[in-house]
């Protein structure tokens, strides 16, 4: 596999002839392999390779994200097929993962907080009001299918609550990253970097990324769902001072965010339906916490 991929990179001008790079490989539990290509200790490229997926759709999403968010997004360099492998090559950026403490708690970093608020401000500029009703209908249909399982009737009712869907129909379409979790965020030379555009734009419901960011800070623990629903404004303002301004940047109130939470959680599960059991378990557990918060 590696000789084939390196040959493809040389053919597409991504590697100099004669260069024999080092590489680390991650064998995902999905349908792709991630390869980090190094030369002399410098990360040259980040490759996503798949035999089962053309990656065309993901490459287009990545390009759209780059267009929308500029330097926050690592530039995609090329999509090519080599042998039986489809490859997306992105510029290698060895950015440091964003640590939780920089967004939550006493040691949070103003620069990082401002960058996160700025991300959501930028996201709001992508708002588009065309075909809102149709998009809401498609989302509702997808969530009904996701929750078409025995034993989750009350949860389904909660997710499909009419008042929340009235709100959804009023909101503009706004392309969401789709997996805006801490492990996909990094900090590089004073700026926020966001990775993984596999699901960019699949969800267009404002606030979805903000919800996933909030929950990822607490590793999607059910208690985090309860906290968001029940915490008073002063508590949230103290611990997560960026939450309300980020909502405001998206044109949402905190009350709206809370009303949308069941839909956000169900949409997150819907996006993760083709992932491995561990990831689905995390998404399901957070969604089920809604039932618990009703009963608790």
């Amino acid at each position: 596999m590696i000789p084939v991929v390196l040959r493809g990179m040389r053919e597409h001008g991504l590697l100099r002839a004669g260069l024999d790079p080092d590489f680390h490989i991650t064998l995902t539990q999905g349908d792709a392999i991630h390869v980090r290509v190094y030369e002399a200790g410098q990360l040259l490229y980040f490759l996503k390779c798949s035999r089962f997926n053309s990656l065309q759709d993901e490459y287009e999403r990545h390009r759209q994200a780059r267009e929308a968010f500029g330097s926050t997004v690592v530039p995609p360099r090329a999509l090519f097929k080599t042998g039986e492998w489809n490859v997306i090559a992105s510029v290698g950026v060895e950015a440091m993962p964003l640590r939780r403490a920089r967004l939550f708690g006493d040691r949070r970093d103003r620069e990082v907080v401002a960058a996160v608020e700025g991300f959501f401000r930028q996201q709001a500029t992508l708002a588009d009001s065309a075909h809102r009703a149709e998009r809401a209908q498609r989302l509702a249909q997808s969530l009904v299918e996701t929750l078409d399982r025995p034993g989750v009737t009350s949860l389904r009712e909660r997710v499909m609550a009419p008042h929340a869907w009235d709100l959804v129909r009023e909101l503009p379409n706004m392309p969401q990253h789709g997996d805006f979790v801490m492990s996909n965020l990094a900090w590089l030379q004073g700026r926020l970097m966001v990775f993984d555009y596999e699901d960019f734009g699949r969800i267009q419901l404002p606030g979805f990324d903000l919800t996933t960011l909030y929950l990822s800070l607490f590793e999607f623990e059910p208690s985090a769902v309860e906290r968001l629903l029940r915490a008073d404004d002063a508590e949230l303002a103290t611990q997560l001072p960026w939450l309300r301004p980020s909502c405001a940047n998206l044109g949402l109130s905190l009350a709206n965010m809370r009303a949308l939470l069941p839909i956000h959680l169900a949409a997150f599960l819907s996006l993760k339906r083709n992932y491995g059991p561990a990831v689905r378990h995390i998404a399901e557990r957070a969604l089920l916490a809604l039932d618990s918060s009703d009963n608790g």
Partner: protein
Amino acid sequence: MGGIDYPTALQRMADKEQLPEVGLQYESDAARIRLLYEIPLSGRPNRALEIVMGTKPVLPRTNWSSPVLVHDLQGAIGSDNAGEPGDRCKLPFADGSFDLVVMHRTLDAVANRTPSGEAQAYAAALLSEIHRVLRADGVVAGCATNRLARMLRGKGRAVRALSSAGGYRRLLARAGFSDIHMFNVLPGPDAPHTVLNMAPRAIRAFSRSKLHARRDYLSWVGYAMRRIATELTFDRWLADGLFFYSPKR
């Protein structure tokens, strides 16, 4: 939290789950082991040989893309037969017979099933034979336990490991292989997830990033110790599992 039985509810939600046709191709450990042994290949090998020593072969259960011939060394070198390692490791195949030879933990078995002090000689003889039966550009690939990691972690006595990364490299070189690639395989060869090149500069950059992500969960002393280990690239010596491959040039 009250009112809901999570395991039961999750099971109910999972009842309807089926593996989709796409999206989870590498879900099973076997699928990722197959991928591990595809890493060094330029195409689909026509003729693959897996060498085992009283253990179950792994390639056949990975749904390997071509027929796999399995050769078990147990009868020849795991018994009390007399003879020199060179004779007992003879492979009953003509020169240049295979595109790929896989030894998944075979060298671990050699270390554990041959008399102490002779394991290195058996391994050297076996690798020479593998070099002989590979065609030009054919690849030997395998996984083995890192003896240094086991010693450093105080686990050396439970299972004998033949050697460490440098030792395996020397054995391969003595057998005639020159273009040798050595990796850490995490969490281990039987459920591979991450394959890390052992080149110091590459592994340092990767380890720094991983350590940074864990920083909030470490005391400053713990962080400082790990940071020193990262800068000195100790990590690469501490992984139990090694993956190696080398094409016959």
